[in-house]
Each structure stands twice: as C-alpha cells, then as structure tokens.
C-alpha cells in the first residue's frame, strides 16, 4: 500500500523527523485559510499517488493566502497520470540551501534493509543512480543490530555533510529506520531532505510504501487507505481478495496463480494480442470469487474477448465453471470467451461449460490464439 505524501510526513514526524507544519485542503477556501494560519509564502502540493507531480504542474508556490486559494483551485480537479487530484497539502515554503536524499529499502539480493543517502536530492533517485551512481551511498543494516551510529557517519561523510549537521542527520536517519521497522514498510524515502538557510534539516517530501502482508497487524495504518486512490474495480478486487492490475489491452484474463497469470499475458502478446488485465483468482477459488473476477473483467469497455486459464490443483475445475455460469447469468454479455481447464476436476468443469456457448482449448498456446482471433473478429 502506498501512502500519500501528507500521511508519510505525518508518520515521519511521529518518529522525531522534522517536517513542515502543513495541513490538507480539499477546497480552495480551505487552502487559503491554511495559508492564512501559516502566515507567509506557502507551497501547494497535489496529493496523488504518482511521481512527477511537479512536472505536471501539481506543485505551486503562493505568496499570499488569496493566491494559495487560487493555485489550489487550479490544482484540485486536475488529472495527473490518470488520477484526479482531490486533496492538496499546503506547507510553509522553505528557504532551501541544499537538497539531499535519504531512503530505506529492502534489498532482496543482500537480504538486508539498506539505507541510501545522496547529495543529489530533489530529483528521482533512479535518475541519479543512472547518471552518477557514485553519488549514492548505501549501508546495509543487520536486522539484529539495527542501524548503528558509525554507519550514519559513513553516510554523512560520504555525501559531504558539514560536521555541525551530523547530530541532526543521525537523529533523522535513526528516526527513519525506526519508522520503517515499526510500520513494516517496504520503502521510506525523504526526498528532498533539505538543508535550510539557517542550517537546520527538514523532510520536505515523504514517500512510504507499506508491506501489504503486514497490514493485518497495523490496523491504524490500514485505515489510512483512501478509496479515492483506487478505481472501483481495484476496490472490488481487493475486497474479494483478487490480485488485479488493469492494463490497456483488449483480452481480459482470469488465471489462477500469479506466475501463470503473467505467462498468460505474455503468450497473448506473443500471438499478436494484448492483455486487458492481470488477474490472479488465487488458489482454491470458489464460484463467488470467480463471478466477482468476471464482473471486474467485463466492466472494462475495452475487453473484446476473455481468456480463462485454470490449472487445477487446490482450485477445482467444476467450481470455476460454476462461477463462470453464475457470473454470466448476472452480467449477460456478448463478449466471446475461451476456456482452458486442466487438472483437478477439469472434465466436470468442461461438461458444466458445454451448455454455455464457450470455446474450449486444450493447451495454453491454443487458448491464446483462439482469444486473439476472437478479439480481432469482434
């Protein structure tokens, strides 16, 4: 789960990291009122879960409260990479002397949480990594020892931070590590970590990604999920425990298992089609789950054919077949469908589907070719 900037910074603040004292507005009037309370120049920032907000015009400075309202009026409602801006964060404008980068991420290869720091803050860290990798310093944290002070000194020295800022930098690094571990994050990033005109450090932007598997033990963090940030289909998928990612092709896919679902998308592409989605119904999928999945797929107007690829193991072919029929009874459609059932109770499943007008295939390659042909014919 991704957190919005204002949520991430609020959490950083709870771990002793200095953050701007801003507030969130949903209307221009609110934004103007917040700017009035701050009493000075402010920065109005679109709260959407995509990168590149600044380039898209979603971050603007305002000198006076009236101007803040005006700017907020322009940002609210604008669309950035497909997402509509419904909230803005109004922060006091900062007197920035230098922009640093500080981040924590799980490094799978080292099997360690790794802290990264760079003197090149304020831009995408991936850009820095590509352009001048030597400007990114990293230290790997032993999970039993935690982040040690000498490691932070290594980072501070490496990014050329003046000694008088080391103490503040150490507190921020330790706060961020503590925050990462206690929230079960998979990413925590301060970019920029600004050196202000008076020499103090402040986290001007924040990003946090939480480990979905750990959300059950963090009900307070799980509650931060904002339904504005997901589409209706994503919400239905989440509530039905389906893994779903919308893509922009025309062949809807329903598959059990994530690897097989990706391979199904790949083979559709190989035969000249393009997948409309990734959808894993999971192991042991029952009829109602299958029906929910099919409704999600059919709600996409781009879908011109649907491909079911089910390899029965824990999942039973007859259960899946019943789910397909149930969904079709509810959502009548003329979209052609190709079914490929193998494994546990596949024969029973095929018999159940024989009454519905569906194309059946033996192999995945055959099924993919049939779906591509059906989508082109439609």
């Amino acid at each position, binding site marked *: 789960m991704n957190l919005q900037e204002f949520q991430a910074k609020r959490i950083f603040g709870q771990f002793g990291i200095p953050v701007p004292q801003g507030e969130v507005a949903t209307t221009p009037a609110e934004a103007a009122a917040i700017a009035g309370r701050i009493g000075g120049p402010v920065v109005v920032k679109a709260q959407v879960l995509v990168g590149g907000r600044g380039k898209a015009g979603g971050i603007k400075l305002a000198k006076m409260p009236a101007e803040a309202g005006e700017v907020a009026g322009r940002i609210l409602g604008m669309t950035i990479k497909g997402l509509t801006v419904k909230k803005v964060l109004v922060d006091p404008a900062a007197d920035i002397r230098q922009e640093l980068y500080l981040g924590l991420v*799980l490094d799978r290869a080292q*099997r360690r949480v790794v802290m990264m720091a760079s003197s090149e803050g304020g831009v995408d860290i991936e850009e820095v990594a590509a352009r001048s990798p030597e400007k990114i310093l990293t230290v790997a944290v032993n999970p039993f020892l935690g982040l040690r002070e000498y490691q932070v000194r290594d980072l501070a020295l490496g990014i050329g931070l003046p000694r008088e800022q080391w103490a503040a930098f150490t507190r921020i690094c330790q706060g961020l590590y503590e925050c990462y571990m206690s929230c079960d994050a998979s990413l925590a990033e301060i970019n920029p970590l600004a050196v202000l005109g008076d020499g103090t450090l402040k986290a001007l932007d924040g990003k946090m990604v939480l480990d979905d598997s750990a959300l059950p033990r963090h009900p307070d963090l799980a509650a931060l999920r904002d339904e504005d940030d997901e589409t209706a289909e994503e919400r239905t998928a989440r509530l039905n425990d389906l893994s779903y990612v919308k893509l922009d092709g025309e062949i809807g896919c329903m598959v059990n298992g994530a*690897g097989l*679902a990706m391979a199904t998308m790949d083979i559709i592409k190989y035969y000249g089609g393009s997948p409309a989605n990734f959808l894993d119904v999971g192991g042991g999928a029952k009829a109602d789950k299958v029906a929910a999945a099919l409704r999600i797929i059919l709600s996409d107007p781009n879908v011109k054919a649907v491909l079911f690829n089910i390899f029965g193991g824990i999942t039973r072919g007859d259960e899946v077949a019943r789910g397909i029929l149930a969904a079709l009874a509810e959502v009548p459609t003329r979209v052609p469908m190709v079914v490929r059932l193998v494994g546990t109770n596949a024969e029973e499943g095929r018999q159940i589907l024989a009454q519905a007008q569906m194309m059946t295939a033996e192999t995945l390659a055959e099924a993919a070719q049939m779906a591509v042909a059906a989508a082109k014919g439609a």
Partner: protein
Amino acid sequence: MSILVNKDTRLLVQGITGREGAFHTEQMIAYGTKVVAGVTPGKGGTWGVGNTPIFDTVREAVHATGANVSIIYVPARFAPDAILEAADAGIPLIVCITEGIPALDMLKVRAYLDTTASRLIGPNCPGLITPGEAKVGIMPGYIHTRGRVGVVSRSGTLTYEVVYALTQRGIGQSTAVGIGGDPINGTSFVDVLKMFEADPETDQVVMIGEIGGTDEERAAEFIKTKMTKPVTAFIAGQTAPPGKRMGHAGAIISGGKGTAADKIAALQAAGVRVARHPGEIAELVAQHM
C-alpha cells in the same frame, strides 16, 4: 538420488490439523510420501489424517519419529515461529507453503537460519517433488513423471503448466522445486542449480523465473561459470508494466531493475535457451535430449 527429497524422506507436518494441512497431508500420503508425524501445539497425543501421531512441539516429534523434513501449513502470523522451531529442533530441510508472511519477519528468520544448518524452501511456494518417491507440497502429483530433467521455479501453477507439458511429451523430471514468490526466501535459484549440477540423476534443468529482484541474473552468472548441464529457461512477466505488483510480492519491476528483458539477456549471454512462451519449453528441452 535426485535432490532434497526421496523415498527416505521422513516428513513432519506443522499445522497438520488445519484445513489445508489435513487435506494436503492426505494427498501426500496417497502419493506415497512417508509422513511420520504432525505438530499442532495443544493437540499432542492425538492422531491426525492417515493415523499420523500428533505432537505439541517439533523437538518432541523429531525425537519420537526421526523426522528429517518438515512442511509448514500454519497461518502467516504463526509461520515465522514454526520455521524457527523446526530449525532449532535440528530439521535439515524445512518447506514453508504459507503465503503472506511480512517481509521484515522473513528478514530476521532468514538471518537466523543462516546461523544454523537448516535449509528453508519458500515461503509462499508449492513445495517440491521427486516423482515416484516423495511429494512434499501442494502440487497435483499425477502431472509428474519420473525422469532426468530438474525443474526449479519461483511460481506455483506455472510450474504445473510446464511440468505437465514435459510429462505429455514423455519427458520425466528428477525433482521439481518451487522456491516461492516472496522477496526474501530460504533457497535461491543458484542453490538449486548447484544441487542439480551435482546430481547424477539430473541431465538438464528447466528454470522458470519471473520479473522482480536479481535472482535470475545471479543464476545466469552461475550457469555461465560453473554449470555444465544444459539449462532451458522462461521468464514470466514480459508484458508487465513497471511499478505494479503482479500478485507475488516479489514480482514488481522497480527502478528499472528486475525487468524480463534484463533477465532474458543475462540468461542468453550465459548460453541458456530462453523460451518465448511456456509452450515452447518442452520443445527446447526435447532438443537437448
């Protein structure tokens, strides 16, 4: 011989009384696996499916039955404890099927396991099977057949797909290992490739990877420098968009790393034949026979 499990495997099931655990224990016994014990804290002294004796602790079960492999079906919030308990009881091979264990829990579990002699396979994996000898997992047994091709995969049902295609072509498997789709796991591609390279009953290997991480790239490096047996590979997720998690917690392309194209290029440079789609794998394997 094969690798990791065989007819001498004495299997312990942690979570044998749960719905999943009971069902799959029955299936594993039906396949011919020697299930010698079950563990469910609080139910010691009773009997589980297949008249399997149940113990309260792993230590007790190992002492009484000589179990040498453990399979774990307990829910995610108890799974880290179950893995550590098996390791502390000296079980050399631990297979964790459980899905949804928080990554930071696995970080500590793996760091601890590295100080013991135990090997973990998984979590979030289908387990492993040596056809005709032992099935330690949740895969449908009948799709496998005894043979000389080793299979190693990060995925579940995609492995079944590939194994089934091999079997239909009359190509049998020595052992098929699912290492799991999580970012932090117990056993990597390289670990399993090493074992297949050393196994006299394996002639060639099929490796099924997916987007995310750099485990496939490291496998390519190993194949290039250390492996003599032919390897055929497939990488799932060639059409996946960056930044989106594709079901598996490990399957995400981040920061331009972990793309299918990178992995395929690395494998091809190591002399691996990479199938363009799963249907092609069995064909490429047949060419090596």
